[in-house]
């Protein structure tokens, strides 16, 4: 009887695939409980684990020598003056401008290590700061793509070669290769897909789930982001580069136009409350 049914289904499938209708397959309900649910659970748990791991291996606040800090902060000071200078009066701005452009142009606060002679370029890979930054970047990348690769291998290895589910929406034939990999039926409708396609759909759609599962931490993260942004490590560490950057900033400062926000403030306030 089963064989009859299958032959009927398959002939129906072949006949209707050309007509565009969908053939009904009868799937073993155990597939849902032993393939669909395990893949979902594993993906959610791996996502949470990845978040925790990325917190663990993420580098904390790192200290750096005082001269480095001075250098970075003087450059930031110039940038801030350029950006927010309109909030101070004209005299204050001129004073700061003169002082900062002089100091930056003289290169007084460029952090030079004692070992390196002036004019000599240091190999950036020997610098511990750069190495740390690259290391943390590599670790972040690994934490994100190793679990993906492992799960994909796992799904492909253990759940290959059978139709798992029916998608509720039609797809073009181009998806057939990807979504029906391992199913040896040339004329099966693209809506019947194998386990790997559930993996793809989960990868694309799990963002909201993770957001809901870890929503308690989001407020903290917002706060942490704020405190960490100004600490941003600049990759520029060569004294020569820093010096040229400082020179450029000094140039920008000398030609900066100042317009104070207190000019005609009365007129604006009156108009605002009119």
């Amino acid at each position: 009887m089963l064989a009859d049914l299958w032959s009927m289904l398959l002939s129906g499938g072949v006949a209707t695939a050309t007509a565009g209708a969908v053939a009904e397959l009868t799937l073993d309900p155990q597939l849902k409980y032993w393939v669909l649910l395990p893949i979902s659970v594993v993906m959610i748990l791996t996502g949470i684990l990845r978040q925790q791991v990325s917190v663990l291996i993420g580098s904390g606040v790192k200290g750096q020598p005082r001269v480095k800090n001075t250098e970075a902060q003087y450059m930031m000071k110039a940038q801030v003056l350029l950006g927010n200078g309109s909030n101070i009066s004209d005299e204050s701005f001129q004073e700061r401008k003169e002082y900062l452009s002089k100091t930056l142009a003289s290169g007084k606060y460029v952090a030079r290590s004692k070992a390196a002679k002036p004019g000599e370029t240091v190999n950036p890979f020997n610098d511990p700061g750069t190495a740390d930054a690259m290391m943390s970047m590599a670790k972040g990348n690994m934490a994100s793509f190793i679990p993906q690769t492992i799960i994909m291998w796992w799904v492909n290895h253990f759940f290959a070669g059978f139709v798992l589910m029916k998608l509720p929406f039609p797809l073009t034939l181009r998806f057939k290769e990807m979504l029906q990999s391992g199913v040896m039926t040339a004329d099966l409708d693209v809506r019947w897909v194998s386990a790997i396609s559930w993996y793809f759909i989960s990868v694309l759609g799990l963002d909201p789930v993770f957001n809901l599962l870890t929503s308690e931490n989001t407020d903290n993260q917002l706060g942490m982001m704020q405190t960490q942004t100004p600490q941003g490590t600049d990759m520029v560490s060569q004294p020569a580069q820093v010096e040229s950057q400082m020179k450029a900033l000094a140039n920008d400062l000398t030609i900066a136009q100042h317009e104070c926000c207190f000019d005609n403030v009365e007129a604006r306030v009156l108009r605002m409350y009119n």
Partner: protein
Amino acid sequence: MSFLSKAIQYIAIIVILHSGFSSYEFHQTAKQLSLDSISNVIALPIDIKYEAIAGLLLFIISVFVSFEKIEYYSLRRQEGHSIETLSQGQYLKYITLNKATDRDNMINSDPTGDVSYTPNMVHIHEKRKQMRDWIQKQQETS
């Protein structure tokens, strides 16, 4: 999240689960029936449809009810007042900075305090000298 929104949310989830179970049972039965006569397709009963949609509506309502007006505790308690919550009467936070700083003033928070609070700039010896002089003068008068 208030009790009301939690209650509605639980009810909504139960309703959706129940309609899901009904739909599952129905489709299993329908599949068995349609094996005998393949062309025969039965539509989902209307009560299951309504149940599922009602569940979704209840869920949306519960999510919206769970939004509460943001309330704050004042950082400095007023003398003689019990601890009370302050509110701007809004569900979200104002984005214009003048309104945003209104909140900071209301709860006595000073976001730039680490910059503007500068006790190390007080000339402490001068202050102590003033204090000593004042105490001396007090003692002399009394």
